[in-house]
């Protein structure tokens, strides 16, 4: 399977990754050869086979809807790269009206 730098760029955008020109070229060739090796899966017929998402059967797990203490706000906000008065600071999301 040939992965072009254009496909790499599209996937990088979906992945929220800024890539350099050099990274785009490297990933295009590496992903191509990895996917070429992975293409051996096509030799194995899987029609009608149930997909497995978990090896050990899991079902919904419920708990009583009770309020329990959570981490203190200060401890959580203290982890943020930038914070102000108990809030996490991020760049402006909405454009300001002129």
């Amino acid at each position, binding site marked *: 399977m040939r*992965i072009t730098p254009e*496909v*790499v760029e599209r*996937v*990088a955008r*979906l*992945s*929220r*990754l*800024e*890539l350099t020109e050099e*990274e785009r070229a490297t*990933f295009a060739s*590496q*992903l191509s*050869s*990895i996917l070429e*090796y*992975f293409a*051996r*899966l*096509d030799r*194995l017929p*899987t029609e009608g*086979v*149930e*997909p*497995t*998402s*978990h*090896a*050990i059967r*899991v079902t919904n*797990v419920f*708990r009583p809807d009770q309020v329990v203490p959570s*981490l203190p706000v200060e*401890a*959580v906000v*203290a*982890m*943020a*790269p*930038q914070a102000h008065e108990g809030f*996490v600071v*991020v*760049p*402006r*999301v909405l454009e300001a009206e002129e």
Partner: protein
Amino acid sequence: MKELVGRPYHELRPRLGKDFSVRELVDAYLENIERLDGQVRAYLTVTADRARAQAQELDDRLARREPLPPLAGMPVAVKDNLCTRGVRTTCGSRILEPFVPPYDATAVQRLREAGAVLLGKTNLDEFAMGSSTENSGFFSTRNPWRLDHVPGGSSGGSAAAVAAGEALAALGSDTGGSIRQPASLCGVVGLKPTYGRVSRYGLVAFASSLDQIGPLSLDVRDCALVLQAISGHDPHDSTSVDLPVPDVVASLEAGVRGLRVGVPVEFFGEGLHPGVRQAVLEAVRVLEGLGARVEEVALPTLEYALPTYYLIACAEASSNLARYDGVAYGYRSPGAHDLYTLYARTRAEGFGPEVKRRIMLGTFALSEGYYEGFYKKAQQVRTLVRRDFDRCFQRVDVLATPTSPVAGFRLGERTADPLQMYLADVYTIPVNLAGLPGISVPCGFVDGLPVGLQLVGRPFEEATVLRVAYAYEQATEWHRHRCPLLRG
């Protein structure tokens, strides 16, 4: 107190508080870290002061003749993708370099409650993605047996620490072999429990349907002791299974007479080093000599397991790692003025090349037009791999295979070709796809490098796996070998 280092905990425990104090045991390990870690580089963080304080507390309890918990004074290391309250947890990544968790992972908390003393946090491939610890965002760890060789990965720091006497036991995580493969390469014991046996709460997520936490240790009994302490249901992890935890220590000595051991022929084909093959087949003969019934079995999907694993693991990783966006914790790129650039630049600067490669691979496999052909296909093949194991376990009780196709490789030898690196896990990966318990125990040497025997059991039959491993170990001397670095 140097003679305390490199001895299994179960040998030291009866002497604790009589021949030496917890403080002396912990100090002996801290001194050995001081002496050797400049060469081995197993640790990202050493928590010496906390360790000494905790040791003192245990000695005080000893002095008051209080009963001590099962792992009292065991000096342990924890892989740096497990959250430790107040102790930096980097996951081997620049993007989490500043991260100090406000809580302990359940496995860490249980170790602490069992009396184990945390010495520090060990190096790993970034986000546990790798098989050599060379993908760490900080530095490479060395194999204590030969410093120009890799320790394996991704729990390379934990395996190297145990092998070099820089920790008596350690926790690792295993998504595709990340406990067993480094255990094999470093000549120690490493166990991946059944998926769901140990809570993953506080383990930084890589591939959530495959990740599992487990112990690395000098021998099988210590491994069982640590597993016993960390196992069991946890309401914080809804995939941890609410089943009773059997006493895996008590059943160790039950022997293997009449037990059926399966040898899957596909694991002895092309790509296996002849020296490794010989050591593993010799180990199977030892089990036969102990009364086990050996028979050949088939796992024909083995050659499909590797691509299946990488598609599933990368798809899950691409989703799990979406949380590293520079907003609430971890690294943030300076100078981004809009949200998209903040995300994309933070991730570009914070992640290393292998993590980016896997996020890209996973995003691709999940993207429109490719989902059916890649991700769904992989999930279907996963079903076939599981059925292969089910068929084997109708005939036999455990499977015996090599852990790694080679005894080891040099630093830099495989970094240029990602696919060559992926092949390092070819024998461990199917076990994760099927969620089974697997252990690696030392079974010989090739050119002075340790070789590992992998034993795999039915779901939640850790006790059987450990019992077979113990019988093998007691019949051989491999687990008593220590690396020249530690002896010197």
